[in-house]
């Protein structure tokens, strides 16, 4: 099928499966590996699009489900799409809306036609089909659009249902491809399903790769499965995916998950956690997450993170020099407290991926991983999570080595 992107592989880690690439989308190039902040309802939680741009973000997410409800397809059409709506000059990725359907609405059930649900407003039956989802995403005009998939929690014990979901996702991909009106302007990504069953994942990869979409997502994860299982699925899938296409693992955002997933060969990630946790007063730092609402920070006049380059932490040259004490003072009391930490956390995630990329290009990614885990756990190897140690072992990195 046609594609509206180019994927240029820049470097490969000589030990792990990590890669660095340039993905050029309709609204400009982005550097992979990449974290995408989530601007659910066409705004990144209080940040102006200008502030988001200044953080270095060039690809953010909007949620089709939310935009379909507000402002709705008709408005989006009249305004001219999501870029125009939010004044965002760079790239946007939208999900299909299916995940929110299932996770937010009671009484949603999935049939071959689509997602059936009862309108929460008046209780009448409604149906979201692959065609609806694609039509909405066509109107939104996002640079990357996702197929509607049959999402099932990976931990579901029902293998029969899991197989049905996987096979249906493939059939729905065909319907999405057929319904896609702008393949020359918007890139449709397929979503690999199959739960934690590696054989089913393998089968799904083969089917979907054959459909030759511009990019490929690994879906259904980040739903409470064991991290070791998660890593096995990602590892299995990336082995089967074509090298010259972007690989997007949906719903991943914890720093440890990101670096391990990159080592397992994934390129793109999104998660609401960094921005959501900011609103709870949590700052993500190299040395772990700080809950700045804790009284111990009331008199802490250090920056949120020492040496951080974000607008909040920086001093001089337009930097604000925001202290932990001030964030403590306003957190959960003034929305500005949330805005400040949102800026910091988004910056952290983007900077983390930038440094990952640099390490891959300079072929010192294994050393980067060792330093990263050491920083996260204060140098105490006994605290390293087993799943990460194990997963990195499978790609040739021994975190326990000195």
């Amino acid at each position, binding site marked *: 099928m046609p594609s509206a992107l180019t994927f240029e592989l820049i470097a490969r880690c000589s030990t792990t499966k990590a890669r660095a690439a340039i993905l050029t989308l309709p609204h400009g190039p982005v550097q992979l590996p990449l974290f995408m902040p989530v601007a659910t309802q066409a705004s990144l939680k209080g940040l102006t699009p200008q502030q988001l741009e200044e953080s270095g973000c060039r690809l953010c997410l909007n949620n089709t489900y939310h935009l379909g409800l507000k402002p709705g397809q008709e408005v989006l059409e009249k305004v001219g799409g999501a870029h125009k709506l939010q004044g965002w000059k760079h790239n946007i990725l939208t999900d299909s809306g299916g995940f929110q359907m299932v996770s937010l609405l009671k009484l949603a059930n999935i049939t071959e036609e689509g997602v059936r649900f009862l309108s*929460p407003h008046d209780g009448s039956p409604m149906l979201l089909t692959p065609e*609806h989802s694609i039509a909405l995403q066509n109107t939104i005009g996002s640079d990357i659009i996702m197929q509607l998939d049959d999402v099932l929690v990976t931990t579901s014990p029902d293998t029969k249902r899991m197989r049905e979901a996987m096979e249906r996702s493939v059939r729905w991909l065909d319907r999405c491809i057929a319904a896609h009106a702008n393949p020359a302007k918007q890139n449709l990504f397929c979503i690999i399903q199959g739960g934690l069953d590696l054989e089913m994942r393998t089968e799904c990869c083969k089917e979907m790769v054959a459909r030759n979409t511009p990019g490929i997502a690994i879906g259904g994860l980040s739903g409470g499965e064991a991290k070791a299982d998660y890593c096995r699925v990602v590892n299995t899938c990336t082995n089967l995916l074509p090298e010259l296409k972007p690989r997007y693992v949906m719903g991943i955002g914890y720093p440890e998950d990101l670096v391990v997933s990159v080592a397992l060969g994934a390129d793109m990630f999104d998660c609401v956690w960094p921005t959501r946790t900011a609103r709870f007063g949590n700052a993500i730092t190299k040395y772990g997450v700080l809950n700045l609402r804790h009284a111990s920070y009331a008199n802490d006049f250090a920056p949120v993170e020492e040496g951080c380059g974000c607008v909040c932490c920086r001093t001089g040259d337009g930097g604000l020099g925001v202290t932990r004490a001030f964030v403590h003072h306003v957190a959960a009391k003034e929305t500005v407290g949330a805005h400040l930490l949102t800026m910091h956390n988004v910056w952290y995630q983007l900077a983390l991926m930038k440094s990952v990329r640099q390490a891959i290009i300079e072929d010192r990614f294994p050393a980067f991983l060792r330093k990263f885990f050491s920083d996260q756990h204060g140098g105490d190897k006994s605290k390293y999570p087993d799943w990460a140690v194990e997963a990195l072992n499978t790609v040739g990195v021994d975190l326990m080595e000195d």
Partner: protein
Amino acid sequence: MFEVLSHVDPNAVGPRLGRLSITGRREFETPNFFALTSRGVIPHLTPDVIAAHTRVGGVHIALEDFIERAVTGTPPIMNCPGSSPLHTFTALPKALPTLLAPRRTPAVSAPNGNSNTAISIFTSTGFQVLSNKSYLSYIEKLQPDIAIALADVPYGTLPGTKRIAKMGDRTQEWLSQLLNEKRKEQVVFAPVLPIDFLDQSEYLNSIADDLADEVSGLAFYDSNLLPDIPATTAITDLPRLSLDEPSSPRQILRQISLGMDILTIPFVGFATDAGIALTFRFPRPLSTHAATSKGVGALQLGVDMWPAVHSTSVDPLDTSCTCYTCTSHHRAYVQHLLSAKEMLGWVLLQIHNHHILSEFFSSIRKSIKDGSFEADCEEFAKVYESEMPEKSGQGPRVRGYHFKSEGPGEPKKNKAAWGNLGSDDQEVDSDLVPDETADESDAKGFAGRMEA
């Protein structure tokens, strides 16, 4: 520090131009306004946005926003390093002059009155007592660019004759203690109480006769007192700050016509929270088209951005406005953000509304310079409505320190954002479900209607 640039006649009541310069801060021309802060922030605006997208003269900071920990220890701001702790602690742009007042504007009335040595304040953890002695030590440490002396102001209640008699005496006492103990460089504004001149004449005369050299300005809790102030040269040359709470642009104009220099304007924040984009200009709209097409007196001071009529409008909030919001975004986006209760909606409105106010004051200064202020005020009164438009939508969440509970049985200030999911008897109440019927969702293309 303050220079009166123009005054028709020092003995007559009238608008005037001035310039306030404070070492190390951006100087500004008056009449102008200070933005109100809450816990050290202009609500909704991060300091980088303030620096990039606003031109406020300075900031009004309330001490009560910082000292909730005073009952158990030292408030953190008192431990803040640096020579300008207010700026360092709040990360506000260094260019902005800071004005420290004991209480917020508007202030929540306290159940307990003030005493001879202290006032009641409302912190984020409840009511407290702030003695003049500790207020002096806060000023000593925080070194605000301007400090307003403690005043015995009765919020919420009308003072009786006995209380009135005490107000002037207490305030006079507190002011002279501050003047005696302050650092030499500390700039102090003397409060003018919201009671009749005669009831505080002793206090005000003492300022005029003895303290005019020591105080650097007057802070009016009621701007109507301005014409009564003794017109000695020393007093006339002092900058005048209003802590009065104008509810409309007309009241701003009235204060300026009395000779007010610096104002604080709570209605900007109210408008923002209500989802109203201010659109008034002085003395008339920038485009004559808008003025003539609607007829005299019909123009609104602002536009409510909640209604769905804006949902597809790619026009700026106000035509020919040059603020960040109007140059980068449009009504449809702001309407969407309000309706989706996204915080950015209020951010964009706050940027715009502060810009409109800065423009308003700039036009006022030009009008005074041109000698047309009186005529312009008349025209403004003819062209625009007198009060702000009614609000229709919900504001952002109200916080505990913004209001006082009026007792049991009070309705909730904030609507619950989330309901329980899963149980069938529970109605799903969240922003994440459609507001509209299945037919409308179908028409919107969100999902298809099925036969029941």
